């Protein structure tokens, strides 16, 4: 089987989903919430998302791609929010390989080469 995508919102849903796929490679893209027109409050996330999506076909078989909306701008700015505290996220967008120290943060997500490296190399 190829790869599959799950879309979640908020920390508890993210954790539940990640745990349910335990044992498979899990990649996650964290972005700011989107408004009714589908636009995120986070301009870098707007830039990064299409670039990341274009590389998804490189994901290894059996892997899961979790697209996670973290919350509104105020929630994100809180230095104690669960994503910062528990997942050690420092910015959005963040693209990471769950359970490893491998991640790309902010402008690093704009670089297709780096996204591809994260998806395809050990």
């Amino acid at each position, binding site marked *: 089987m190829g790869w599959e995508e799950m879309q979640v919102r908020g920390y508890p849903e993210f954790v539940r989903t990640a745990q349910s796929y335990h044992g498979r490679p899990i990649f996650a893209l964290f972005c700011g919430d989107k408004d009714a027109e589908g636009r995120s409050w986070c301009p870098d996330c707007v830039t990064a998302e299409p670039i990341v999506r274009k590389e998804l076909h490189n994901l290894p078989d059996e892997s899961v791609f979790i697209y996670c909306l973290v919350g509104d701008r105020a929630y994100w700015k809180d230095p104690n929010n669960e994503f910062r505290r528990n997942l050690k996220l420092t910015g959005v967008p963040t693209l990471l390989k769950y359970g490893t120290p491998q991640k790309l943060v902010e402008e690093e997500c704009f*670089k297709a080469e*780096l996204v591809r490296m994260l998806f395809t190399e050990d």
Partner: protein
Amino acid sequence: SVQAHKEEDNPQKTMEVNGLTPVPDSYDYDLIVIGGGSGGLAAAKEAAKYGKKVMVLDFVTPTPQGSSWGLGGTCVNVGCIPKKLMHQAALLGQALQDSRKFGWQFTEEVEHNWMTMTESVQNYIGSLNWGYRVALRDTKVTYENAYGEFVGPHTIKATNKKGIEKLYTAERFIIATGERPRYLGIPGDKEYCISSDDLFSLPYCPGKTLVVGASYVALECAGFLAGLGLDVTVMVRSILLRGFDQDMANKIGEYMKEHGVNFIREFVPIKVEQVEEGTPGILKVTAKSTTGGQMIEGEYNTVLLAIGRDPCTRKIGLDKVGVNINEKTGKIPVNDEEQTNVPHIYAVGDILQGKLELTPVAIQAGRLLVRRLYAGETTKCDYVNVPTTVFTPLEYGACGYSEETAVEKFGEENIEVYHSHFWPLEWTVPSRDNNKCYAKIICNIQDNERVIGFHVLGPNAGEVTQGFAAAIKCGLTKEQLDSTIGIHPVCAEV
């Protein structure tokens, strides 16, 4: 299968007139760096800055115990970084004990969990490995996790872990393959003993440990293992910290002995046997005296060998390209521009003959070399007055001459040694030793009492030494030192 890479759209390189040997007029790369450690990565990243086409080959041959690691070399994976973190873990243990005297109250006895520490350390190292890969990819440096060896004057064969071979050519090469721990060559050494290559990722607590060796690696490891509460013995063949100021070395040894590290002096192991399997198991070590026929035996959970490191220069095809190495030590002699006897092949880092084996030295040498090659600079690496620190339980920072070397070079009557014990303020309240911390400077009387050696034994020795190294580089004299007002209350004011 073997493929030769030839990039057709490479710009033409100048034809090399090299006797009758025909050479290709365009190479795959401007520069191939063999070894992705401190020196290699610094050089590669610097070369990329000048728009050069660079490849880095890095490969870790697993240890006899099966340990391996990612991109970054010894320092990041099995050297300075995990060492300092584990040293810090031990210091924190000491701080917890001291804290009671400063009023902190806790009823539980404090214990150390090896796995928690090791996982955190390995996680951090993993982020560094990843960071290097991102940095290389971002600066368009090609990185391959493959074992590189010369097969021709401008050609490298790279073999990856699946055994696939590829050939690459380059105009110039930098060898930065570093070193690996030496084994004793006695029965049971590779089967049962570990080295620093294994220690920092050991998936179980080492337990009662015998450290064989008297290098800084041996003493630092013995130091933090004891600091974490383990029963540690150090087996020393002759002196401690060969090459370092012996006065300081002995003080370090004394301190460790008084703080729970056992020393067995003037013995060498002659065999290691397994008494019981396990993680850890039980090993029996038989050792022989170096001064008589006496034999002793001891049982330990873990035997850590730290008797020296050997350069990785014997199996990289240097004979095929005529690069000279010191046959006895494996080190590569280079001129003061890090050039080997083969003009287009250079070397940096621990493998160099006669140079200090330190990460910052390798980095500096690598960067300056690349700037000379591609940016028209002329600055050479300054190997004199390089500061260093040994992170034993009582830290030792030094810059410049040891007392012995100064006496040898200048004559005893021409040097003056100023020294002092000191008692860190932070140690007073918890009643820690009041006569162990020590500082000395060695001055050249004939040269305005220029400070030519700086030695300090005490907490944060590395932090203290760094600034003095800069002062020494500027030609610090005793008078200037005396006229510098101290910061109070800190150890460095002494």
